[in-house]
């Protein structure tokens, strides 16, 4: 705990100094969000002072390896973790001018599924196996819109149709295990869209699906985003997906946003060593088959032993003593492109050579 707090304090103050007052127009404005879990061996920081804002209708991608805190961050926004773990939040999450972290549990429930919805990674396990899908879609309508059973079912049918499920009249009575993975994910999306939310958080919605289905689902999300004008926070580890649909990207590592920029710049000009590593590890159809696929050395350290200084230090080929002792601030490299790295200028200019990995 104690070793964590200076870092988060730092990032928080830097964020404060950057934008003095809250942005009234923003759909979502996250400021210095920090999420900690109490564990048997003390508190663990999973999200460390994250700040970003998104406008209505925007699709923002969050990328990073598994374990980097993407899911925790997204679930922190709608406080899904309240129930499962001993969790504490710091910072602020503003949704259209309302601060979520300080809402009472009952007010918070009125936000969930209503103004903000979520779609999860594995559709089969994310649906309750014991209820027909129609009921599961109708459930949030009955909860938030106070619809009668009949009205809710009618609306559910409409939603199913909108998500493009074939013969929805028949499917509506079926159980999750009777549907294919793609259809299940469409059902998940129908559930999420039931109350026409302002914000959809999609947590790796395509990871568990076949490639062809993936494309269909992505298309659906983009189409619905356009039609309904909702913001989409798209969490993925797949940079290819990001490039297809997102307007801008945040790269996360160990609970922090280490780099954020527009999608175009992501591929053209990644500055953070971690982002560079991610991009180089994408297999390319047009690439040289004989070239070995790049792998980022090492693995993501566990949250319990996050390094001091720069969080990427254990795997960064450019790291030095300064990286190990001091955490770099989130600096603006260019308009709309910020990152956390002491040496990104040197790396960009080629002045800094990659050293041996680790020590």
């Amino acid at each position, binding site marked *: 705990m104690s070793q964590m707090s200076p870092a988060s304090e730092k990032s928080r103050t830097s964020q404060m100094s950057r934008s003095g007052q809250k942005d009234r127009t923003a759909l979502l404005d996250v400021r210095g969000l920090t999420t900690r879990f109490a564990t048997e061996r003390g508190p663990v920081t999973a999200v460390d002072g994250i700040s970003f804002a998104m406008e209505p209708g925007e699709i923002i991608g969050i990328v990073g390896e598994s374990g980097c805190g993407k899911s925790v961050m997204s679930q922190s926004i709608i406080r899904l973790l309240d*129930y499962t773990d001993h969790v504490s939040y710091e910072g602020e999450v503003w949704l259209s001018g309302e601060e979520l972290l300080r809402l009472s549990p009952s007010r918070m429930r009125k936000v969930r599924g209503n103004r903000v919805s979520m779609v*999860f990674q594995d559709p089969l396990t994310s649906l309750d196996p014991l209820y027909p899908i129609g009921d599961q879609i109708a459930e949030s309508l009955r909860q*938030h819109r106070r619809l009668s059973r009949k009205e809710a079912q009618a609306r559910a049918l409409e939603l199913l149709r909108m998500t493009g499920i074939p013969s929805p009249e028949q499917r509506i009575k079926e159980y999750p295990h009777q549907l294919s993975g793609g259809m299940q994910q469409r059902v998940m999306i129908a559930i999420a869209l039931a109350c026409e939310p302002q914000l959809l958080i999609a947590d790796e919605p395509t990871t568990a699906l076949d490639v062809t289905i993936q494309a269909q689902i992505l298309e659906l999300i983009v189409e619905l985003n356009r039609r309904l004008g909702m913001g989409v926070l798209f969490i993925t580890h797949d940079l290819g997906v990001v490039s297809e649909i997102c307007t801008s990207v945040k790269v996360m590592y160990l609970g922090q946003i280490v780099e954020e920029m527009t999608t175009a710049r992501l591929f053209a000009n990644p500055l953070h060593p971690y982002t560079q590593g991610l991009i180089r590890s994408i297999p390319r159809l047009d690439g040289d088959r004989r070239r070995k696929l790049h792998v980022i050395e090492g693995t993501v350290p566990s949250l319990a032993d996050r390094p001091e200084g720069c969080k990427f230090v254990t795997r960064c080929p450019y790291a030095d003593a300064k990286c190990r002792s001091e955490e770099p601030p989130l600096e603006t490299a260019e308009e709309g492109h910020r990152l956390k790295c002491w040496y990104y200028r040197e790396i960009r200019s080629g002045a800094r050579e990659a050293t041996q990995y680790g020590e």
Partner: protein
Amino acid sequence: MLAYLAKRLLSLVPVLLVITIATFMLIHIMPGGPAAAILGLEATQSDTDALNEAMGFDRPIAEQYINWIGGLFRGDLGDSLFLHQPVGQAISEHLGPTFSLAVVAEVIALLLAIPLGILAAYKRDSALDQLVRSLSLVGMAVPGFLLALFLMLFVGVRLHWLPIAGYAPLADGVWAHYRYLILPGISLGTIQAALIMRMTRSSMLEVLHLNFIKTVRSKGLRESKVLLKHALRNAFIPILTVIGQTFGTLVTGAVIIETIFNIPGIGQLVINSIERRDYTVIQGVVLTVTLLYVLINLIVDLLYGAVDPRVRLDRK
């Protein structure tokens, strides 16, 4: 469905055969005979012999067994040697009190165990959870008859709140009926409660970690709905299994609890019948109880389908 039932019933045949033969042999090598209870201490050997002959106990055991099985196929369990009524009638008259007792015990067990089990799982490692875990551990270690004695001592003898024993049929009024069943119900229900509580807790814990719980919560449902409508139903199959098992052991438990609290149920009937060497009743009760046990298991199996559509479809 029917085929499934038929298969289940057929698989029962060898089990029943083993049980009935074992019962038959066991009771016929028990020393003493029905004459003791019927004729009393003064009976002469010739009186006893005459009685045994009249009842057909002088014939070989195998022949008696075959006659009895033959009777079964005609739906005839024989006549009680002591009660002067058909065994079927004796059993059905005694099933009522046992059924009432079992229901009270199970209701007490479920009312206690399911909510506490759910809360313990929900507030895992909290003080409540610790309490629930300790309760279920102690609950499993206190045998029903001991609990019955303690309840008699404190609630009946010291506090005079409830009658310490006895029974009144439902016809005498609802309170008259149930006030006799509360202490026996608690005595019998506690162990069931402990077992069900333990299972509810662990099964809920497992379900609460599943993904769809997050989905349900992300819809903004109230926690009560999350827990009861979604988590509990998903956690219910193992709980149901334990409930089925405990319902089965309720009959066994009733044997002791009914004798302690003097409830004229099937347990008391069989204990009395063993003492009276009322062979036909013993056979009838053992058969009935076994069938009941199987029936309960069958009902539980069918309930699985009602709880979980996947089970239903798999069977088609």
